[in-house]
């Protein structure tokens, strides 16, 4: 099962220079557990709810700390034709409930663990 069907249009994003408080407010109102960090139209990193909480706890000046100081890179997205299981395992590794979908570096949208798990349950005949 590929994730193409489950992609929600891209919504909230963060920029590296934004403060943690700015991004926290946007993440809350978007109802997401992470935001893709975008620069020059391309996704360059990810910042999760957990990253924000941890950063606010340890930062010397949390009001001035920026996304760039705490964003993460690496395996932080999937591509449209990846299998749902790839996205789920990546979410588990990162510890977030949503994941960006990119085509090369271009952000297409997000997938959520809830929708992917519900679809997996249907495929495997599990009542939810």
């Amino acid at each position: 099962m590929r994730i193409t069907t489950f992609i929600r249009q891209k919504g909230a994003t963060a920029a590296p220079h934004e403060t943690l408080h700015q991004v926290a407010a946007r993440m809350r109102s978007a109802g997401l557990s992470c935001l893709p960090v975008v620069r020059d139209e391309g996704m360059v990193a990810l910042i999760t709810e957990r990253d924000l909480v941890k950063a606010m706890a340890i930062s010397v000046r949390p009001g001035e700390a920026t996304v760039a100081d705490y964003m993460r890179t690496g395996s932080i997205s999937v591509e449209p034709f990846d299998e749902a299981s790839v996205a789920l395992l990546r979410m588990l590794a990162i510890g977030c409930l949503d994941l960006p979908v990119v085509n090369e570096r271009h952000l297409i949208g997000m997938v959520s663990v809830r929708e992917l798990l519900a679809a997996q349950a249907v495929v495997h005949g599990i009542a939810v």
Partner: protein
Amino acid sequence: MASRSEVEELSREECERLLASRSLGRIAIVVDGRPQIFPVNYVLENEVVVFRTSWGLKLERSPLTPVAFEADMVDPVAGEAWSVVVQGTVQDITEAIDTRSVRLRQLAVDPAAPGDRPYWMGVYIRETSGRRFRFPR
């Protein structure tokens, strides 16, 4: 130990020991620019204050915001009182799948107030301060 009429500033370690010894505290959050305080039953685990809540302001307004949390005790027999205040940030860990949140949801956090409290919240501590003093019995 504080002598009579002295206020003793507590170390972080002592604050955490005292916090861990209690299960009822108060969380202060800012709602629409106004501070509000709510009593909650909690468990302290590795610098996280964990409590449960129902649908309402604590769930809707506190995640990813700075909050204060306070616990205290007055012992009229010993003539001693203490108060510990922490500053931190709240995470709604109800559905979180990071390993720490999953572990925190295993804690025995038992709200005394009636009603379902299905939502799990963690206050990740940034700063801790505490005071203890003695008073005439």
